[in-house]
């Protein structure tokens, strides 16, 4: 087997050194009844690289990949062009095959990257500090709610109806077990987000309000207004960003009063990957540092006085504090953080603004063209690179028919919000820099035909 270096002779020699007659003698602690006599039954034996490649390639070929079709899906995961440099660099073995940097003297590469990453995230979010990554946006969102509970010593969270429904479902699931009270507002097909309803739901027990920016329907909430209301009631504003490219164009949440900003970093460097691995981002005010979950990288000096980096404030963490830790997270998204950081380094601040401007322009071209179709209207007052269209038909059916025609034409609100028939006409469409005029034209043509077919 190509991954196993020991030869039969070496195995025999090593057993001799150990003083064991056979390898089974090393498994003596396993009760006889639990020991399998041979390989697990009913499963295939080892296979060559060529054979495995054939099997996996055949499975991959059954999927319609985004790059081969007009593609307009977003809703929490975005298709952006990732420069070739990013994937090359993250595949360097020194990054790819290193562990969590527990031995800082020989992990300065990973540690400096994390320090740079934390700085980039903090600057993008407009927060004082950021951590070294979480699993994804949805789990980062839940961790932020727990963190707000520790900071405020309250246990009620208000979720905007504009929060991604999967994020809301993760929060509701976990809160049911921890006993936190969650007020989860319903999504509404209104031109503006539910800022007023969020503010009205804040009371003296509220630890935090959770607002997505832009929200799941592509609308932009007024964070400064919500922040002022939360602050007046002693609650924190948690801002959720699922599309960080938007922050190249709209103001950083931290500059608008958000106390904790969490996000999904997948847009930069990571790719779609059918949902994972992704990259949870978490930034906050400096005074909350000791309540943060996850790894933190900090600057220090070595015995010669040279600048160096270490994992720090680990007395918050599970391996030191055990059941009193701020979180149980251990392995996080290190390599995705590296990819994000490299992509952001390639862009720079002005490049980020430019990328955002291009995204917004592509989305405008898409919206203008699609709303020229009879019966199709735009819901949003404002949007960045995704917006909600109202169709004269059930959008689920339309998406299905578009897929049959080779167009990945957005996400229906019926799929995102099952059990909410009042949202059924909503279609969430997204355009990034990867969308061409021709893609838009094909989408518009096919959508018009599908709608005619539905009407007929």
């Amino acid at each position, binding site marked *: 087997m190509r991954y196993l270096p020991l030869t039969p002779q070496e195995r025999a020699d090593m057993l001799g050194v150990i003083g064991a007659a056979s390898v089974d003698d090393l498994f003596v602690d396993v009760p006889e009844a*639990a020991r399998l006599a041979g390989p697990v039954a009913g499963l295939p034996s080892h296979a060559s690289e060529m054979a495995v490649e054939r099997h996996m390639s055949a499975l991959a070929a059954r999927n319609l990949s*985004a*790059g081969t079709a007009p593609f307009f899906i977003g809703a929490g995961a975005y298709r952006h062009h990732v420069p070739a440099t990013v994937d090359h660099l993250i595949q360097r073995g*020194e990054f790819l095959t290193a562990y969590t940097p527990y031995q800082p003297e020989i992990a300065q590469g990973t540690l400096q990257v994390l320090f740079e990453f934390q700085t980039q995230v903090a600057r993008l979010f407009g927060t004082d500090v950021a951590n070294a990554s979480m699993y994804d946006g949805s789990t980062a969102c839940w961790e932020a709610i727990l963190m707000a509970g520790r900071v405020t010593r309250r246990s009620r969270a208000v979720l905007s109806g504009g929060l991604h429904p999967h994020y809301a479902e993760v929060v509701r*699931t976990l809160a049911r077990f921890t006993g936190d009270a969650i007020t989860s507002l319903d999504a509404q097909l209104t031109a503006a987000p539910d800022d007023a309803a969020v503010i009205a739901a804040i009371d003296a027990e509220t630890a935090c309000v959770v607002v997505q920016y832009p929200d799941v329907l592509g609308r932009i909430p007024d964070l400064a207004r919500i922040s002022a209301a939360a602050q007046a009631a002693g609650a924190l504003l948690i801002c959720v960003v699922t599309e960080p490219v938007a922050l190249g164009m709209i103001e950083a949440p931290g500059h608008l009063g958000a106390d904790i900003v969490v996000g999904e970093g997948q847009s930069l460097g990571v790719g779609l990957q059918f949902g994972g691995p992704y990259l949870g981002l978490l930034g906050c005010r400096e005074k909350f540092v000791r309540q943060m979950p996850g790894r933190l990288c900090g600057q220090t*000096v070595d015995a010669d006085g040279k600048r160096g980096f270490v994992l720090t404030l680990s007395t918050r963490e*599970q391996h030191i504090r055990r059941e009193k830790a701020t979180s149980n997270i251990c392995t996080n998204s290190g390599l995705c953080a590296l990819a994000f950081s490299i992509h952001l380094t390639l862009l720079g601040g002005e490049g980020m603004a*430019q990328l955002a401007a291009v995204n917004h*322009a592509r989305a405008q071209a898409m919206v203008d063209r699609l709303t020229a179709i009879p019966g199709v209207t735009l819901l949003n007052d404002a949007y960045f690179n995704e917006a909600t269209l109202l169709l004269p038909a059930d959008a689920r059916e339309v998406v299905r028919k578009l897929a049959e025609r080779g167009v990945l034409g957005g996400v229906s609100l019926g799929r995102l919000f099952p059990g909410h028939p009042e949202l059924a006409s909503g279609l969430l469409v997204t355009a990034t820099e990867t969308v061409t005029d021709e893609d838009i034209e094909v989408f518009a043509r096919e959508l018009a035909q599908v709608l005619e077919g539905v009407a007929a």
Partner: protein
Amino acid sequence: MSGLNAAGWRPAMNDGGEAAAGPATASGDRGLMLEEPLIFELGTPAKCGVDLDAADRAPVQGLSRFLRKEAPALAGLTEPETVRHYTRLSRQNYAIDLGPFPLGSCTMKHNPRLNEKMARLPGFADVHPLQPQSTVTGALEVIEQLADWLIRLTGMASVAMSPKAGAHGELCGLLCIRAALDARGEARDVVLVPESAHGTNPATAAFAGFKVRSIPATATGRVDLDALKAALTPDVAGVMITNPNTCGLFEPDMKAIADAVHAAGGYVYCDGANFNAIVGKVRPGDLGVDAMHINLHKTFSTPHGGGGPGAGPVVLSEALAPFAPLPFVTRDVDGTVHLVEEENRGDGHDQAFGRMVAFHGQMGMFTRALTYILSHGADGLRQVAEDAVLNANYVLRACEDVLTAPFAASGPCMHEALFSDAGMAEGFSTLDVAKGLIDEGFHPMTVYFPLVVRGAMLIEPTETESKAGLDRFIASLRSLAQRAQAGDDTLHSAPHFAPRRRLDETLAARKPVLVWKGDAPAS
């Protein structure tokens, strides 16, 4: 032993490293030992390594009041500068590609590059999680095929695929237990955790809303069965056991423990971090386990990436399977696969406890793990466990005369060898041996864990180390053990030959500097 001997295959170490370092250089670099500034010291927001189109439209009217006043203060670099920055940084890292990485409990094995190649096929890498199901049947098939392997290898009833890492899998397993207890109408709120457990176990139990009660270990490093039985009060929801345990030993009473817990109305959670020792040899389902996470980034060789991403699917017994979270991929009788989400949960998953992540879990890790599993096959995976255990026992027996091995007398170890710092000269401890290993060109073992052994050194070679490689490692470890016994002071200042000397962790924690604030470089 090999022809390599304990006197060392590298030049003998000199006094403290300064002399070997030679004269100071003007650049601060020393040959291939390269220093690298921060991107914020190298770049500017105006620099860019990407050619972007021009935006041909002004922002929509409604957006104007939300616009940023200025571009983010992010340093940019051109492409050549970017490649150089990260390549230079990479050279300050140790990695499995460079040599043994014997971190106990972490299973740092070779990462086959075929896994990387397969994960990057556009049909897997460039697919959106919310595409219509008809366009992603291959992706769902990967999830189902991997799930089938995990179920068969563990002898369990079902598997929840979505957890993102080991600790997230622990949470998933404990929430399944909470849900099962809720369904029984019982409010048990205590989880028993042996004192040798990974820190994630008690942290997860607390995260899931349980109280933690600690169970002591016996003198031979196992769970104390009598103490455990005595702790099985009616408020006990279950037990979290690591098997093989964190001392690198199999728990021979596992079935008896499970039977006792079940008889008392509780469930058995097994921390599967050490599954590599028994994959293909033992099925946890045969030992009475109700839930166990599998770290795909350990046993199934998806890379660690400097701290993730991992993946932590949780295999479940018949008793817990109905409560697995959504989304869930199932195979129909006609052989096709389909996705169960909130809207069609009535399709056999109406008791699902909810959702743990936004999408389907770590698909990129699933493709890598399935590629690895298909490469090894059932026979190869069995050989993996045997070679992993053989390599660990070889290290144990080759070093037990110079290092204290607290449990070696009780018999063989599993996939990791445990030593302590007992017997070292006054003032010398595990840390000195660990830092000495860095100078020898190796990554240190796991140190000061498990907590049940003072000055623990936990060594997990894995099956992908050759005998020659192990012999070199053993020679270095023996040399260091002897130097620690003899009180060789130069060990205290190790490492001497790494990109950095020992770092001031106290300073880092006392005055945290977590982001760059424009201070000048110190060197």
